């Protein structure tokens, strides 16, 4: 139903921020609970774990949400500029996000962060492409069928 479908672009940013925050919160809780458990003194493991999770995992979620929000915003901007939706947009967005979020640390760190962001996004895109290619090959209607004897 194309009359009722809306342009994804501004609403996609909110979706991405929310899902990135959720991912960061859950992943951060698990990770920080392990760290809090390990660094604690002997009788205070549980208390330390709970304290560490409460203090740090919200921050991790916010960092992930910042990454996701900036990424999605730059992606929408690139789509509006290029007038084309492409995997290249995602890679460029990943690089620019890495650079932009490291702006306070100077140009060299920005360049390294941009490279890391674009490599990670390229890997994600590549995995998505390979998956869709293999899934498509499975459901190909023009592939040779094996002879079936009843």
């Amino acid at each position, binding site marked *: 139903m194309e009359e009722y479908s809306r342009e*994804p672009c501004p609403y996609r940013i909110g*979706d991405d921020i929310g899902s990135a925050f959720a991912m960061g919160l859950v992943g951060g809780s698990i990770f920080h609970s392990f760290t809090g458990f390990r660094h604690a003194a002997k009788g205070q493991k549980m208390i330390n774990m709970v304290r560490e999770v409460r203090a740090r995992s919200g921050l991790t979620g916010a960092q992930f949400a910042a990454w996701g929000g900036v990424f999605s915003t730059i992606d929408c901007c690139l789509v509006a500029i290029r*007038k*084309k939706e492409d995997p290249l947009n*995602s890679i460029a967005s990943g690089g620019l996000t890495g650079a932009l979020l490291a702006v306070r640390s100077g140009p060299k760190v920005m360049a390294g962060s941009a490279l890391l962001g674009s490599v990670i996004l390229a890997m994600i895109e*590549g995995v998505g492409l390979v998956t869709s290619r293999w899934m498509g090959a499975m459901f190909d209607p023009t592939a040779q069928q094996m002879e079936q004897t009843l």
Partner: protein
Amino acid sequence: MYRCSQLWVIQPKSLRSGGLGPLLTASRNLGITVRVLDTNKPVQPPKDAKAKTKHVAKFSNERSYLDEILIKHEEEPKTTAQKVKKKAENTFFYLVFAGSVVALGALAYYFIEQFISIDSPQTIYSRTLKMVQNDDRVLDIFGGSLKGYGEDTGRGRRRHIANQRYVTKEGEERVRVMYHVKGNHRTGKVYAEVAKKDGNWDYRMVYVLTDDTVPRNIILIDNREKDPNALV
């Protein structure tokens, strides 16, 4: 403000004559205690230090104290069993590393092939979109500023281009691609097909269909062979 209460001055012989006066007056004004260490006499550690510590660390000249205390170095494997275990660990790590390099290389190959090879849907999409965006009839019907996109996924990204690769009865390989375009007045679909003739991939047809109740079509390229037995 950072205030140090003691100032150690290690005094070489050359400065002994006049160097210390101003330092002492400054220290009196700032409330800093100045202790002077004479480098002629070597420093002796307190006599009962060794009796107190259980573990005698070997302090040598090459490594600093902090290095020795804080960094833990693994013991070299001495017995045969330990050596075999270490070699097995190393081999496992090398295998995992080689496997991941191979996997990454395969991923990079498939990824780059998507953008460079002529018969991949992405290249067909890019080139035909450029053709369509510059065509007068299309711009007239759709209103300017034409935007192209693929199929909707659940998450809102529309990157996947619907495509089908097939082989005709005569053995000719073809790839057909369909994507959406949206202009200021209307939306539509673009169908493009490439076929492999004598080893080169060539456009067989490119046409645009609007999404009205009565679709209008704009044919940009039509290279299909005229079938002599066709009725039309």
